[in-house]
């Protein structure tokens, strides 16, 4: 099966830089921003966004991570998943603007779980969503506020996001989808 390269390292960096500016623009500055990455690759992306935000407006890149395993609606339908750690920045999320960061936005069910998880941690002023790739096929009324790239796909295709920190290479590829 052949994999088609969609985004290269430079494309990913460019997309993240644009998203950072969009976040600052929509938030009207850097105050009370908290980026929460969703494991595994969302955490890496959140850290990178945090660094870019810091370079634009120092002190704006508050980054944490949010594990949603326990809140998934498919726990009983899949083999047991081991949870990942959750780390909320010291200031908490009450009254803050939380930006959830994930690699691929697909059915929207992960984000639903993340919203439930946030609910148990505090009450943010607003919750936004940033995704590197939006591949469509939503099953819930959820949309991304900041998107790296919209990739119209068939449900049979597979999107692979590989990031340097986890996979040793920065790239986004599409696999399969013969039909």
């Amino acid at each position, binding site marked *: 099966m052949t994999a088609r390269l969609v985004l290269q390292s430079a494309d990913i960096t460019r997309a993240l830089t644009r998203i950072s500016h969009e976040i600052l623009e929509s938030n009207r500055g850097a105050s009370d921003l908290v980026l929460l990455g969703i494991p595994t690759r969302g955490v890496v992306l959140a850290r990178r966004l945090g660094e870019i935000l810091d370079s634009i407006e120092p002190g704006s890149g508050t980054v944490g991570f949010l594990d949603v395993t326990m809140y998934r609606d498919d726990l009983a339908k899949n083999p*047991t998943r081991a949870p990942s750690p959750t780390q909320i920045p010291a200031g908490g999320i009450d009254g803050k603007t939380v930006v959830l960061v994930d690699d691929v936005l697909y059915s929207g069910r992960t984000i639903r779980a993340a919203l*439930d998880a946030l609910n148990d941690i505090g009450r943010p002023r607003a919750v936004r969503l940033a995704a590197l790739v939006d591949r469509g096929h939503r099953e819930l009324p959820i949309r991304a506020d900041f998107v790296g790239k919209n990739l119209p796909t068939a449900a049979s295709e597979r999107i692979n996001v590989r990031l340097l920190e986890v996979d040793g290479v920065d790239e986004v590829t599409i696999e399969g989808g013969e039909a």
Partner: protein
Amino acid sequence: MRHLLSTKDLSRDEAVAILDVAEDMADVAGREIKKLPALRGKTVVNLFFEDSTRTRISFEAAAKRLSADVINFSAKGSSVSKGESLKDTAQTLAAMGADAVVVRHQASGAPSVLAQSGWIDAGIVNAGDGTHEHPTQALLDAFTIRRRLHGASARGRDLDGVTVTIVGDILHSRVARSNVWLLSTLGAHVTFVAPATLVPIGIGDWPVTVGYDLDAAIAAKPDVVMMLRIQGERMNAAFFPTAREYARQWGLDDERLAKLPASSLVMHPGPMNRGLEISAKAADSAQSTVLEQVANGVSIRMAVLYLLLSGTTGEM
């Protein structure tokens, strides 16, 4: 994981995985809303044929924090006192739709009978059976040691090279048995110190060093000293002359506490007999992990219930 019956069945990786999940569960205890929806709609039955406060409450708190429904059953005041058999009790619970059964029984092997009999389809967790095993206690002990030694970087690590001295009634102790298998699987070195009358026959096959002198064991500067409870209810023969003599020979008193390195942990599975196997000063010192063990017990039991009850196959 289908059942948790013995720590002997756990591989190093499985044991570390349980401890890692427990780390995540422990984070939840620090939150304002101490609840996760992972086991919503599942039913956990606490089937206790023997008295217990901390283990039963700990399992109950763990199940409730994971949003499972909990049914408590104690043999006293139930049909068991009318002569109902374990089989009939198990089948009754199965008919009520229990997803997991936490069993404490005075007979060694009762949980594994339940797991293998086919009377009930639920996952079985051994919460202490006779003088056999108490696996969640060993897991929480290992978790407590790992947290104290490695702090925030504990995830993924085992207990390689840690020296643990377990003191007291080894003969009747299911805690000691579960700890021997688990701690040695995790790479720790276990030493037993006990009166010769309270050392079980056939201990030569266990991965432990046996000693009879507590002062010599303390002089060896162990990383952990675990005092076991003298179980009054099982002292039906003359294992030692008097309680005072036991306390003088094998009790962790103030003098022995002073000789112990300041970095060594003092552990006790509870309930403590203050003044007998452990002095009040030792129990309340900064080295003592007794209350941490109780708190960590909830996290460990959450991890075990989660791994048992989530997922289709229960495979990890």
